[in-house]
């Protein structure tokens, strides 16, 4: 009983800012910045319709673009990082420690100094602009450049007992066989966490998407959300809150649907040990 009281209180604290946001999405423009209470004085559901069709392109289009980028990123990260993680976690080869250290090192450089060199590079590759400007956002994920996920999967794989590999090897499995028959089936929790995280990160990524997308029709949700507020001039705070709330919905549902897989997947792994 005590546990549930604590849980309810905690939920209330954590949710309060979100509820406030929800309330603000229903406030009239003059109210959003002056009315500090959660409840709108002037109930304005029009923020949602206004926000949805605020631009030449309906907001749903931005969600679709984001969903497309996010889905591709998820697949790319899962495949490429899994391969790299298997090598780091299980295989023996020269310079393994060196490469692992390098990989962790790539997590450490503040991204802002990489934006310009990367842009110049991708421009050289001919990836910038064109009819499908998403290549600079997705191709790097295909090549496991998101070290976070490699590290995450390495840590998960190290929870899989070696004995399973050894048994498979005695049965005549090669490194590929072990990967295919032992590691891959047991990596579901790692893959699901990677999926959850890469989806969410892509959904929130602003800076890179901002730099590479220049066509309103190609904008993603985080880029489009900033269009509502031009601090030097016009702003539409209410519609911005409304669309922010809407942009949470798919991610929230995605998470609630997948979290069980994540949690149960690991449990299965544990039992097999």
């Amino acid at each position, binding site marked *: 009983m005590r*546990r549930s009281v604590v849980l309810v209180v905690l*939920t209330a604290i954590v949710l309060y*800012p979100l509820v*406030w946001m929800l309330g*603000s999405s229903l406030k009239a423009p003059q109210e959003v*910045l002056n009315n*500090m*209470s*959660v409840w709108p004085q002037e109930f304005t559901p029009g923020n949602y319709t206004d926000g949805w069709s605020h631009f030449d392109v309906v907001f749903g289009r931005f969600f679709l673009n984001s969903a497309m980028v996010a889905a591709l990123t998820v697949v790319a990260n899962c495949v490429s990082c899994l*391969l*790299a993680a298997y*090598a*780091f*976690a299980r295989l*023996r*080869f*020269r310079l393994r*420690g060196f*490469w692992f*250290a390098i990989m*962790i090192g*790539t997590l*450490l*450089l*503040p991204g*802002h*100094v990489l934006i*310009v*060199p*990367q842009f110049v*590079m991708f421009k050289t590759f001919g990836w910038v602009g064109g009819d499908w400007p998403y290549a600079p956002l997705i191709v790097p994920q295909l*090549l496991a*450049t998101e070290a976070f996920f*490699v*590290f*995450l999967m390495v840590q998960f794989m*190290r*929870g*899989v*007992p*070696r004995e399973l590999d050894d048994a498979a090897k005695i049965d005549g499995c090669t*490194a*590929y066989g072990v990967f295919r028959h032992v590691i891959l089936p047991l990596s579901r929790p790692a893959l699901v966490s990677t999926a959850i*995280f890469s989806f*969410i990160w892509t959904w*929130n990524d602003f800076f890179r998407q901002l730099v590479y997308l220049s066509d309103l029709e190609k904008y993603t949700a*985080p880029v489009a959300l900033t269009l*509502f*507020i031009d601090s030097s001039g016009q702003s539409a705070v209410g519609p*911005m809150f409304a669309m922010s709330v809407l942009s*949470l919905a798919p991610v*929230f549902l995605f*998470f609630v649907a997948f979290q069980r897989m*994540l*949690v*149960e997947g*690991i*449990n299965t792994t*544990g039992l097999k*040990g």
Partner: protein
Amino acid sequence: MAVTQAPSPAPPAGPAAPRRRGRPARHKSDGAAGYIFLSPWLLGFAVITAIPMLMSLYLSFTNYDVLSDWSSTEWVGLDNYRQMFTEDPSFWHAVRVTITFALIATPLKLAAALGVALLLNRSFRGDGLFRGLFYLPSLLGGSVAVAIVWKSMFNGDGSFNAFLGWFGIEGKAWVNDPDYALGTLILLAVWQFGAPMVIFLAGLKQVPQELYEAASVDGAGPVRQFFAVTLPILSPVIFFNLVLETINGFQGFTSAFVLSGGTGGPVDSTLMYTLHLYNKGFTEYQMGYASAMAWVFLLSIGLVTVLIFRTGKFWVHYSDGDD
């Protein structure tokens, strides 16, 4: 997970350790397989990660300013580094702000994540919904909406002071007070504890119930069970979260950027290292200098990370029995 065996004396964390122990069979190299599996990463590293990193390293020795034609960029040797350490008071200020932030926010965030994960580590009706709700704040990242919400809540007439008012406490304009602005930033970071919480939850599911039962037969209370059973088995996950959140804590750009409108104000009280770096690069167009700052950051945080990996030896228990 082979949780039934007693945690062996901690092996060095991470596969980077040079020493090799274990069964003789493991000394055999897997030959080309390693590099074949690693090849996407290697290619990505060589083509996509390494080139910009090397470019930024090179630029850190130049006066590169983003806008000028490349031909007018000059080699300035260690000048950027010298300037940083001797002529830029904001640099040292930003270092102090960042260390304060990381040292307070990281442990609090991890503690909150672990605490809530322990609470939610039990099946009950709607558990998925609760996990989702606690996860929501991290989904908002550093959006404009979050900045407005946070500033409104922690302003003089905001909800937080209304709450304090119930207890007869008169609050301040927390976000606008140079003494407390960093505090609100820390709160924001802690509030977004969802990501490490999910990983903790996953880790907690690995602890077999039998171990708790065995422990309680031995007369261990919940506290001892936590330290004797939960903590050791959770240690690789704690380790992972610690490394990642430490790096995140030191980098902490987004919330400082949105909350202060990019200025690091009031009076530089939220001038995080990366924010100073960003301003140097993108508003003062001293990208050479910003690159130098980035490499100093990489080396310093690299050192911190190595230290964490080293201490990992003493408290992280892997069940693969490997190095």
